[in-house]
């Protein structure tokens, strides 16, 4: 079962890496945002640069997962290869696990440049323990966004998935306080942010890399979102039958 998951993952990864521009594309956007917004404005301030890097990493986690799964899955479903794979004698688990492994690798590809830019071109700094903690937090906060992407990908046709992912990602980023330093967002955002999935995720990141207080209410909201997206993803996966006609 796990061997089959690895085979599915390798198949998908090979497919992605044969078109290198797709890999470059997903790594480019978070790295460019770092260079355009974080390095020139808060690069000299150790505390702000660290928080801003944490925000940018959260942004990249949301961004890659929402698009990778939301659009990737829904485009895959439109290909005639997908219904064929469904006739192979494997359950849904290896396919799903393979997709998650592929997504984690793609996420790492987009996060590493962000971390490198922060280390080389800003005053941002973390202790080794905090760094490891941040890596663990990254894995944890990717779960709700993976599930959110999967819900979109399995529920919607690819054109609709693209629109929904694009409509969602900016309000989620801004509303969750990813664009502003901790406590620096407009009042209504400050009130709302802890209870959005992005807000919960970035608060956990801030707490991992700085002195930001751990917020129990916000964490409970994040767990609730994760459960909700999990249920949605399973529901839409089960009702999906690939293309409707054919």
């Amino acid at each position: 079962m796990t061997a089959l998951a690895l085979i599915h993952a390798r198949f998908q990864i090979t497919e992605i890496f044969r078109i290198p521009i797709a890999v470059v594309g997903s790594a480019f956007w978070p790295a460019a945002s770092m260079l355009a917004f974080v390095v020139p404005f808060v690069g000299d301030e150790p505390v702000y640069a660290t928080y801003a890097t944490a925000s940018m990493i959260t942004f990249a986690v949301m961004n890659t997962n929402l698009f990778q799964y939301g659009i990737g899955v829904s485009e895959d479903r439109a290909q005639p290869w997908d219904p064929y794979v469904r006739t192979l004698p494997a359950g849904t688990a290896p396919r799903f696990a393979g997709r998650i492994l592929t997504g984690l690798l793609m996420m790492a590809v987009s996060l590493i440049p962000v971390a490198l830019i922060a280390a080389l071109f800003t005053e941002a700094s973390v202790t080794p323990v905090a760094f490891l903690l941040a890596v663990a937090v990254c894995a944890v906060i990717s779960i709700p966004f993976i599930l959110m992407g999967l819900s979109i990908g399995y529920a919607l046709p690819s054109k609709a998935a693209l629109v929904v992912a694009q409509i969602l990602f900016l309000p989620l980023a801004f509303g969750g306080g990813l664009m502003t330093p901790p406590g620096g967002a407009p009042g209504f955002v400050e009130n709302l942010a802890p209870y959005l999935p992005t807000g919960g995720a970035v608060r956990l990141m801030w707490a991992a890399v700085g002195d930001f207080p751990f917020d129990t209410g916000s964490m409970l909201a994040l767990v609730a979102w994760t459960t909700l997206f999990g249920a949605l993803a399973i529901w839409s996966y089960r009702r999906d039958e690939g293309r409707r006609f054919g």
Partner: protein
Amino acid sequence: MIHARAESVTRRFGATIALDHVDFEVRRGEMVGLLGPNGAGKSTLVGLLTGSRRPTSGRVELCGGDPRDPASRRTLGVTPQETGLPASLRVGEVVDFVRAHFPDPLPRDELLDRFGLSDLIRRQTGGLSGGQRRRLAVALAFAGRPEIVFLDEPTTGLDVEARRALWESIREFHAGGGTVVLTSHYLEEIEALASRVVVLAQGRVLADDSVAAVRGLVGIRRISLTSAVPLTDFDFDGLVSVERAGDRVHLLTPDADRMVRTLVSHDVPFCDLEVRPTSLEEAFLAMTGKDAQ
């Protein structure tokens, strides 16, 4: 013993009914053709029997179980649509991926050799010709040493030699006890392999019979001629439909020879006589159009 079965199966897509109370049975070791024009419901029926779709109502069964249960699909082989092969992956990689799903797959080289793909092992599927892709698609159906295969137009678009070779390996599989379901919208393709044909049209089973009987049903010819006389005044036996475009009249009939003799014996004045086979689509259109009158 029944190898695959659909019992009073209905499948809707929103307001469209793709399959309407269809009954279909394949016995173990049988070779059956599933014939129908595009949109008849062939691929929907195959999708239900191979576990990629769920019926709206009715029951489907594969190897004695629910096709949606992976265990029922361990001895199943299906051809992917050859346009859907992952373009950036190599032939060998696609074959290995499919083989990895089965407990006792055919060795890769043996499979590639059998379908004449050995030289293409390092080629990306996106760079293959249509015929090579078709052969790869059929090869994938046999990768897991199946007991039952569903082949979708396995030889359409192949050159004569490749077609013969493919027919030979399908016959070999069948001779060894394998069950084969061939879908096609060419009777000729089914005729070469199967003796039983199930005809689907507009989501219903129109016929379940021998190739000869089905040929009589769908082997409609188009007789075109120019005549000043309105041919509709005659009572022709076996006339399926008449179309008139200016001076030109098109008569659709299963027996062109008899129709031409009738025209001659009635002293119908005509010139520029032409007799052509019709496509399955035309034949079905004519038949269902006649039913509606």
